């Protein structure tokens, strides 16, 4: 129900249109997260690792939300999150990983996350993240 409220809010202009960046090397996750966000009316872009996330920001783009995977080649989520924060990026960064909270993701959180959700992302988890984005923007 909450996702319907959010969708209608975006459609009517009551909720400001959000933008998101999906950072994940797994094609299945990229596809699902892209569709989940699209379904909620959130314009989103997909990149395949942390370095590409940095490059996208260096090109001048900015996003309300970054969904950051942990385990990625080239540059992982911890390093990418640290670098983005060091660059002054204040977007809401939600860590998304198949590793559970018991699996030492403390380093990931301390790198600068605003939220962490275990995969697979569900609509409910995504709405919870988006609530944080709205609070952050307000």
């Amino acid at each position, binding site marked *: 129900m909450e996702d319907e409220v959010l969708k209608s809010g975006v459609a009517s202009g009551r909720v400001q249109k959000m933008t998101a960046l999906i950072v994940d090397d797994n094609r*299945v996750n990229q*596809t699902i997260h892209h569709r989940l966000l699209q*379904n909620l009316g959130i314009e989103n872009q997909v990149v395949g690792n942390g370095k590409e996330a940095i490059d996208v920001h260096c090109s001048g783009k900015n996003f309300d939300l970054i969904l950051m995977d942990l385990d990625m080649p080239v540059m992982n989520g911890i390093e990418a999150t640290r670098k983005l924060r060091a660059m002054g990026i204040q977007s809401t960064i939600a860590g998304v990983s198949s590793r559970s909270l018991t699996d030492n993701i403390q380093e990931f959180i301390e790198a600068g996350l605003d939220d962490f959700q275990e995969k*697979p992302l569900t*609509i409910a988890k995504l709405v919870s993240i988006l609530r944080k984005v709205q609070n952050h923007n307000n």
Partner: protein
Amino acid sequence: MENSPMRQQIASMRQSLFDEEILDNHYLQLEQLEDRDNPNFAEEVMTLYCRDSTKIIASLHQILVGANKIRNEVNLMREYVKEENIEKTKSAFQELQIQHDILRAKIEPYFQLLRQVGPIETAQRPK
């Protein structure tokens, strides 16, 4: 049209996939993401998943690179799967992830250094 024999067969097949626990509720989410613009979204994601996971499973058989501890953990996992011991399988999988991180953390700086100085000696097997 909705109750044609073909539709009934499809509904029955779909239900047995859930009854046999081949699929779970997360698949329902994929179906919920289908609409007029994306009518086959669930099938597309499943096809992608099967393609990628086939490659990963095939690579588990190819532990030929000398990653000793990873090979040991994979072999342990296989044993636990055969025993149908879920808890030990999960624990072995977690250990596999740790060993994988350790391998990458140690081998990458080694290769970086090797690239800088060039290979002078060949590796000697410890006596």
